[in-house]
């Protein structure tokens, strides 16, 4: 074994306790990177294996309306030409189901999927018992998810009412191919036979259904066929997508997610690196005498440097390996958190080799990069200090140190770019880090100065505490950076969460409607209104007509779009809109341009009022003409006003397009209604079941359930971000512990002198509590101020939410940080209180 390695190991043996936190810092960062990358790589691996079965076909054509003749013709042509070798049609529609047995109350919204026999071309529909074959659903059979059975208290063999027909439950779906990834669903899945769909009456016009045509295509022609069909069907309101394209897209999204998530890990790791850097600096200071001795007995500077570098490498490697072990433990727990994904396809979560290699590499690199500059001090140690304490000569410009510092900075930017998978993002992250650090430093410096008047305080302990914060060689800056950043993350996310949840609870407030009835047919209006009025004991609810329309052309002063294809190119305008008509403005609307129409129905040209967003984004103006396609019927309307809609208040609903009555006379339309349902869950269930029984085509959306779901999601997301914040704060605390124990030797000596001069242990304890308490209060204040700016910025600009300050979070945050830092500071300096002065002074 070489001398350098042997010495490095000997050094670790004697100082591992002091350096323990060094590798914990590294371990936490590496652990986050490895865990996050592994999860996503596992998902991606599963995806690559099963991308075709995710779509259940090679090519998928979808539309929100029945396929036009042109689409059917095009597919038939390709079948004849042999480019399509199999076709299975399917329809997805949201609807209500309820038990046929009147003794079982309740009704649920589900995502119904009607499929033809060849489905699925790829992948398997797994049932919890038995195997799937299409025969299972033929003749009014249904397959359901276990949650529906639980919700409606049903079991296999029972019957459920779907639309106007009863279906027998014949199996329970465990996993289903072709379930869209990440699609927001209003209910659980029910599968029936395509042939039975028509009889349910659910395809009555206006229902929100998604038509799907799954095609099997011989391999080599897939790409060409996709391109041809896309071009041919551009104006047919149909989407064409191959499994490869969706695989590519999901793959790209996953890559981006992986890279961004590992940046989170990198931030934690870099904070660890900052800790490493400050530990190394103090460590070298403590080792100066040993370094001088080594030089005295013949070691060159390079060799001494190599010893300490070797030590850092070993610790960095050990820390990184600990991180990998931690990541492995986290991954073992992952499946229980993301059970949902397994409903779609099987993912084996485990450490992936590339993630482990990257984690180890980044961990070791960060350890080395952050310690190399402080280690360079080793060169300047002169062996003559063993004979007498020299006054060090005035420092010359140390070109080596500065060029190494420059290289380290460049390498860190490189690592950030590598981890982000993008030089630009890497540069932004580095710049962001430098800017954040700078702001924290400046804010910290201002606050440190702001507490300086306390040095004239009457309390001796407080005076000493304030002096210590600003004394030379203090660790104030690094503690402020680390603790401040952790506080910033946690408080920022918490206050954002409070604002988000508050916004949702405002929306679901006392007098707001909390239930929607949709797909009401014209002839059901009176009966439904009467039924709801009798159930709720309130006046009959208002019914609003809704139609589904697409913009197919614009003849404007500034915009000219001739075909649907051109419209589709304009962000936002190409989607399908739900439109209405009425003669009055609603309470949540106001006109900002043009004039609202007279309450009489229109006679000549149709008139439309547009939402102000179109003015801003697409420069649509009063006087422009727009062409709409309403389920095949083309209507040209003149824009006569622009409305501002208060989207927060949706009692009256919000529509992008409102038409003057008369435009749709005789056009197919349905109605929706918003109402305030009874508060008790039983009464709500009764109301839903009653509506489902009497009006099978009407869907009930319970806003309370959805809000609960959304609130759950918000809570989960903010918990996840809080975990990241907690990791950052943990690194901060580790840095704090490190900083305290590293400078302890100085403290012990000072305390010994003060004790000799008559200070009691209690006074010294008070000094410590005050010093770290003030430091914690400064870090907490810096973090809390940043958090206010962060939550305000995100709420105002990214989420478009009204923002209110959350003073309780700010105050609790500052006080808690202060107490935490004080407690940790004192606990880490127990030796200072315990040591007897004489032994300390003699040892010096």
């Amino acid at each position, binding site marked *: 074994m070489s*001398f350098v390695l*042997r*010495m490095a190991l*000997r*050094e670790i*043996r*004697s*100082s591992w306790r002091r350096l323990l936190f060094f590798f914990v810092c590294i371990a936490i960062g590496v652990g986050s990177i490895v865990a996050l990358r592994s999860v996503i790589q596992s998902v991606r691996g599963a995806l690559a294996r099963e991308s075709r079965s995710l779509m259940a076909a090679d090519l998928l054509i979808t539309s929100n309306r029945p396929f036009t003749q042109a689409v059917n013709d095009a597919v038939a042509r390709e079948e004849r030409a042999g480019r399509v070798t199999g076709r299975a049609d399917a329809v997805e529609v949201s609807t209500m189901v309820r038990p046929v047995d009147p003794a079982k109350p309740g009704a649920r919204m589900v995502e119904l999927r009607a499929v033809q026999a060849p489905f699925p071309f790829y992948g398997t529909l797994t049932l919890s018992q038995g195997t799937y074959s299409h025969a299972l659903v033929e003749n009014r059979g249904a397959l359901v998810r276990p949650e529906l059975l639980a919700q409606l208290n049903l079991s296999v063999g029972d019957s459920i009412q779907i639309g106007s027909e009863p279906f027998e439950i014949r199996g329970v779906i465990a996993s289903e191919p072709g379930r869209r990834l990440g699609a927001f669903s209003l209910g659980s899945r029910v599968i029936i036979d395509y042939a039975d769909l028509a009889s349910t009456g659910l395809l009555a016009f206006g229902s929100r259904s998604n038509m799907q045509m799954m095609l099997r295509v011989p391999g080599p022609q897939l790409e060409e066929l996709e391109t041809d069909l896309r071009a041919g069907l551009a104006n047919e309101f149909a989407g064409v997508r191959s499994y490869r394209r969706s695989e590519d897209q999901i793959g790209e999204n996953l890559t981006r997610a992986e890279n961004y998530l590992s940046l989170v890990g990198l931030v934690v790791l870099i904070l660890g690196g900052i800790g490493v850097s400050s530990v190394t600096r103090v460590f070298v200071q403590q080792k100066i*005498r*040993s370094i*001088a*001795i*080594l*030089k*005295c*007995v*013949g*070691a*060159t*500077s*390079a*060799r001494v440097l190599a010893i300490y570098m070797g030590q850092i490498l070993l610790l960095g490697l050990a820390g990184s390996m600990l991180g990998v072990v931690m990541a492995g433990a986290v991954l073992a727990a992952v499946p229980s958190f993301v059970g949902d994904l397994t409903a779609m396809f099987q993912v084996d979560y485990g450490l992936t080799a590339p993630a482990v290699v990257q984690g180890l590499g980044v961990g070791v690199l960060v350890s080395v990069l952050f310690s190399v500059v402080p280690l360079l001090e080793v060169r300047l140690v*002169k*062996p*003559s200090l*063993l*004979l*007498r304490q020299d*006054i060090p000569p005035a420092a010359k410009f140390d070109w080596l140190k500065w060029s190494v510092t420059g290289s380290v900075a460049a390498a860190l930017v490189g690592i950030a770019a590598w981890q982000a998978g993008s030089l630009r993002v890497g540069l932004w992250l580095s710049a962001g880090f430098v800017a954040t650090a700078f702001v924290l430093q400046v804010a910290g410096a201002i606050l440190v100065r702001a507490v300086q008047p306390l040095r004239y305080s009457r309390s001796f302990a407080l005076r000493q505490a304030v002096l210590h914060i600003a004394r030379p060689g203090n660790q104030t800056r690094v503690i402020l950076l680390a603790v401040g950043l952790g506080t910033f993350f946690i408080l920022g996310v918490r206050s954002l969460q409070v604002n988000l949840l508050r916004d949702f609870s405002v929306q679901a407030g006392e007098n707001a409607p909390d239930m929607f009835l949709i797909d009401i047919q014209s002839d059901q209006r009176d009966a439904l209104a009467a039924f709801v009025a009798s159930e709720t004991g309130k006046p009959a609810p208002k019914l609003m007509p809704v139609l589904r329309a697409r913009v197919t052309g614009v003849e404007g002063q500034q915009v000219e779009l001739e075909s649907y294809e051109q419209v589709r190119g304009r962000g936002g305008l190409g989607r399908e809109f739900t439109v209405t008509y009425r003669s009055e403005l609603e309470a949540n609307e106001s006109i900002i341009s043009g004039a609202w129409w007279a309450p009489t129905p229109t006679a000549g040209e149709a008139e439309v009022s547009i939402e102000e967003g179109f003015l801003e984004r697409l420069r649509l103006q009063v006087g422009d003409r727009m062409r709409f396609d309403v389920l095949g019927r083309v209507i040209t309307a003149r824009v006569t006003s622009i409305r501002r809609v208060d989207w927060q208040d949706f009692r009256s609903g919000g529509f992008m397009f409102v038409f003057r009555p008369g435009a749709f006379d005789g056009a197919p339309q349905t109605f929706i209604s918003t109402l305030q349902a009874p508060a008790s869950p039983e009464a709500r269930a009764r109301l839903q079941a009653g509506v489902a029984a009497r009006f099978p085509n009407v869907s009930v959306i319970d806003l309370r359930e959805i809000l609960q779901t959304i609130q759950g999601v918000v809570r989960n997301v903010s918990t996840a971000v809080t975990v990241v914040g907690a990791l950052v704060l943990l690194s901060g605390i580790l840095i704090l512990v490190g900083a305290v124990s590293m400078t302890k030797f100085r403290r012990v000596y000072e305390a010994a002198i003060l004790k000799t001069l008559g200070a009691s242990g209690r006074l010294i304890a008070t000094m410590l509590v005050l010093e770290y308490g003030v430091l914690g209060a400064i870090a907490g204040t810096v973090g809390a101020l940043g958090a206010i700016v962060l939550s305000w910025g995100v709420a105002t600009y990214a989420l478009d939410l009204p923002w209110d300050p959350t003073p309780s979070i700010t105050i609790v945050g500052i006080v808690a940080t202060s107490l935490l830092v004080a407690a940790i500071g004192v606990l880490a300096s127990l030796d200072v209180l315990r040591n007897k002065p004489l032994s300390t002074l003699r040892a010096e």
Partner: protein
Amino acid sequence: MIELRGVSKVVMSGDQPLTILHPLNFTIASGDCVAIVGPSGSGKSTLLGLLAGLDAPTAGTIAIDGVDITRLSEDELARLRGEKIGFVFQSFHLVPSLTALENILVPMEIAGRRDAAARGKQLLAEVGLADRGHHYPSQLSGGEQQRVAIARALANDPPIILADEPTGNLDSQTGRVILDLLIGVHKTRRSTLILVTHDRELADMTDYRLTLRDGRAVEPAVEVAR
């Protein structure tokens, strides 16, 4: 052989130059035992540090076996010390994180000696600490620490041993043991021994005595009358 020609040392005290050593000329032959004596602040330790290449003189040349060490770089000096010079300090200066044995091993390991382990144990035995090799410096008494330091100075069998007040931090009885050890080593190995000391009795045990006062040699190195 060690030859000093016009060796002086000036340091800056504040912005005033302060002369610690005035130009000195003398020669020490191989195998001699020399005491450098004089009151506190007379420049004794500085001179010893210059001889070990721990510090550089302001002017003059120091030649060890014909090599002018004032022209060597820090790293070349380190190698020279590892090879030719053993140094014993007043306050021992053992590496606190290493055991007694490991402290002795360090110079041999730096030099890459293959027999380091065996020789380390032998040296420990020679200084009477055979059973204490695994103790850390903090677990040893002052006298024991100094014995470890002497063993370390002898590790590479250097022709020159420099000792800076080796008994200064020890009680007189322990100091006596250390002295006997040093003199014994000088005699058995025929190595050059240069001691800085306040101790009259110790100075009288050497072959020559160089007396410094205010950075000047009071008289050329004189042979000790015995």
